């Protein structure tokens, strides 16, 4: 059987609300990798697939609360973020999160690469380590703004904070990050 035509988000949502699971499957296919990236980076790590699955089941149940015309992505990510939070709360270990973030690509350059490339690589590693060391809320806001490419308003929606908190926490997080990197760089100058 062939697909006759594709449907956009608005139509898929409208049909899903009426219980059309085929229409919902289109949304699931369309947003799985985005939801997975969010869950993973917000702290679910290896459990991201489970979070995504639960979030989609929950989102279907809550579709009646979805306001027509609003973008689906941030609305879904709000559920994903909440599921991730629940997962983290249920975990006994607190260290898991740090491990996940340190599993990021470090891009170790080849031995013969130019010096500035080596420096850029080192700086990335330091940046990532610094982000992992931030307090939860500050790390989350940076993940939303810069690793999920969400606007301030969307970040506020996803994390369930007022927009003002998104602004102030972003500012605080960037300041702290700069401090952490600067102290790291100073060490390097003195030692090298």
């Amino acid at each position, binding site marked *: 059987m062939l697909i006759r035509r594709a449907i956009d988000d608005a139509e898929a949502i409208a049909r899903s609300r009426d*219980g059309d699971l085929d229409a919902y499957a289109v949304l699931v296919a369309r947003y799985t990798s985005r939801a997975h*990236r969010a869950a993973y980076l917000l702290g679910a790590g290896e459990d991201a697939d489970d979070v995504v699955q639960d979030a989609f089941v929950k989102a279907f149940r809550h579709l009646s609360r979805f306001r027509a015309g609003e973008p689906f992505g941030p609305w879904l990510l709000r559920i994903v973020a909440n599921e991730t939070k629940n997962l983290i709360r249920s975990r006994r270990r607190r260290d898991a999160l740090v491990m996940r973030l340190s599993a990021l690509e470090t891009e170790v350059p080849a031995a013969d690469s130019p010096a500035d490339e080596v420096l850029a690589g080192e700086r990335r590693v330091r940046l990532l380590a610094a982000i992992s060391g931030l307090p939860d809320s500050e790390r989350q806001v940076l993940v939303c703004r810069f690793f999920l490419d969400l606007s301030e308003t969307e970040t506020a929606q996803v994390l369930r904070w007022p927009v003002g908190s998104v602004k102030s926490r972003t500012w605080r997080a960037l300041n702290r990050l700069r401090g952490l990197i600067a102290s790291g760089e100073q060490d390097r100058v003195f030692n090298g």
Partner: protein
Amino acid sequence: MADSADRQAELESELRALSPALKLPPAADVTGTVRQRLQTRQARGRRGIPETGVLPRWRRLRVAVIAAAALLLLLAVTPQGRAAISHVLRFDGIELHQGPGPAPVPAPSGGASVPGRASLPGSRPMSVAQARRHVGFPVLAPASLGQPSKVVVADRGRVVSLIYGRTPYGPVRLDEFDGHLSLTLFMKFVVMSNVTEVWVNGEKGLWITGPQELIYIRRDGTPARASAEFTTGSTLIWGTRRVAVRMEGSFGETAALAIARSAR
């Protein structure tokens, strides 16, 4: 204060540049599992069985049997045609759908729909060098095609299009975008049997023959209808970790792969 704001902005762009370098495991396909869970729920709902709550063991068993039976029944009565639209092939921000799409919008100037037509929202022509400074991903230009005759940055730096007016394969168009955020940027309507998997520089790609309809998806998820256009030739889709490329032209697979390999 201004200095502090500058340094803040610098760090922000550094973080954005770091985003594609994050290594994440691939997402599992949850479409089937989610559908199954929802089907079970729907079946329960119809039978008036509570969704949660603690039931005695014998009742739980009975619920399970009823749910399984209802699921089987649902599978049996669901018309085949309705199940079909869930088949969507996703690749690097491009969603492939089987069959013809909505009727293409005629070109505003009345001109023919050729791969050179800039049809994405907010298009701004500029040079390759300018485009490279303007967007947050590396722009790949195939060396074997020479200099592009036109470069367009669309939708506030979301897509860069390189157009080569005269090549041995007729006009060739490349649409490039940041593939790492897993957003859907294009919808394509194709005949699935015309899609084959290929390898370009060690990365998986797709080779699609024959005319296809193409629709651009805006940041808010709505399709830009005006961008619906028929591609005239065949298309090669490939990418690196940082950038995804959609290249169309009237070339064969071997020529397309050679052009892709020359992209720097």
